[in-house]
């Protein structure tokens, strides 16, 4: 599954995307917990940046939503368009 990071989260993690493998389906917060445990960069970024937003295949979701290997997950701080 592809995970995209944007803005301050991208800068804090130090990359714009990851590709991970998951069996069946997982909740978004489980994936984030695994990333945080895997590397201190992720741990710092996900702890520091507040009010993160989640989107699966371009639809806003909350972190209790399930994702599978076919999905594109995006994680980002609140947007500031317009």
């Amino acid at each position: 599954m592809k995970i995209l990071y944007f803005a301050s989260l991208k800068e804090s993690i130090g990359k714009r995307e990851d590709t991970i493998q998951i069996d069946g389906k997982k909740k978004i917060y489980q994936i984030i917990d695994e990333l945080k445990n895997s590397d201190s960069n992720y741990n710092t970024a996900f702890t520091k940046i507040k009010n993160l937003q989640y989107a699966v295949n371009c639809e806003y979701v909350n972190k209790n939503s399930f994702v599978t290997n076919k999905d594109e997950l995006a994680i980002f701080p609140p947007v500031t368009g317009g």
Partner: protein
Amino acid sequence: MKVIFQKQNFVIEKQISLFSKTNKINEGAIVLFVGKARHKYKDKKILSIDIELYEKMAIFQTKKIIKNLKKKYNILDYLLIHRFGKIKPGENIILILVSSEHRKQSFGFSEELIDWLKVKATFWKKEHFSKNSKWVSQKESDRKLIKT
């Protein structure tokens, strides 16, 4: 009826001129909104801003909201241009042009669209000052305008 996300600046007069050329049956009102890059944040001089874009999602979401707003306000035509990339103070960031039979339709469409873009469209602004750079925070006042 177009949504354009682009890096280059645009000329307001040219856009409104092109927009006015298409014939709209019984058009009674045109509303234009332009958002520009300001020169200062509080008392600090802004040298430039950078706008990051998650384009696929921005297009998908913007088209969805516009479809709803078109129906809600029964407008005749619209144009949305939103820039990304490097932008200097004084330059345009966003343009909304709307045409409708009655004024409340164009005002409603443009205000609700810009309100929505501020808290839902996947653009992120970073302001560069002389000594540091800072990601812009989403405004609480903007967030309150949009339900969920």
